[in-house]
């Protein structure tokens, strides 16, 4: 499959995989920056494609490392912390909506957040309904 040499890295497999993972994360950001600063449409498209492809690799490597117990996932956020942010940003949302309505008389009800479980029911909904009521 690949050269079976008696080579031993002074870095562990985990170190090496970790180095690749952080490089992939960095390269995703660099492609995003490059795309936003490109003026040629074909170059912008190239950087966008490379960004998406690299993002996919990063996700695959992360999952493989997690399965090999090489990655300690961050601890879950506490319920009270979620409640606090929820409360605060619902208030902010009201103010922002007021701001938009006062200035444009318009309502915006789109969300980019559509978890898999919700998607099916949402597909039946039409128009500008929020996906989270």
């Amino acid at each position, binding site marked *: *499959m*690949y050269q079976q040499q008696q080579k031993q*890295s002074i870095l562990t497999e985990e170190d090496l995989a970790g180095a*690749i993972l952080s490089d992939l994360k960095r390269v995703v950001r660099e492609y995003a920056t490059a795309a936003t600063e*490109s*003026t040629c449409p074909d*170059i912008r498209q190239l950087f966008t494609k*490379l960004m998406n492809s690299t993002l996919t690799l990063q996700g695959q*490597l992360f999952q493989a490392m997690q*399965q090999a117990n090489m990655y300690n996932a961050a601890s879950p956020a506490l319920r009270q912390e979620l409640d606090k942010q929820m409360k605060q940003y619902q208030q902010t949302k009201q103010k922002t909506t007021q701001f938009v309505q006062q200035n444009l008389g318009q309502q915006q009800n789109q969300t980019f957040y559509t978890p898999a479980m919700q998607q099916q029911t949402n597909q039946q909904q039409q128009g500008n309904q929020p996906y989270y009521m």
Partner: protein
Amino acid sequence: MKPMTAKELEYIADSMSNEELLIKQCTALAVTGTTPALQNLSLQFLQTHQNHYDSLLHAIQHHQQMAPTQPQQ
């Protein structure tokens, strides 16, 4: 198609350096790794990074003809 800007060329060159480094790191992981899943993945990545590198190289190639030979103001 428009001529490539100097900035775009810089990003492309930097990106090829990044891809080259990833190609080398994936090779190292494939050769020295011990977890089959990671070894297989690194071989798969190796090909993708080589494709990325070639795509960047092609972009320069395609813009060679329309690039000005004198500095523009």
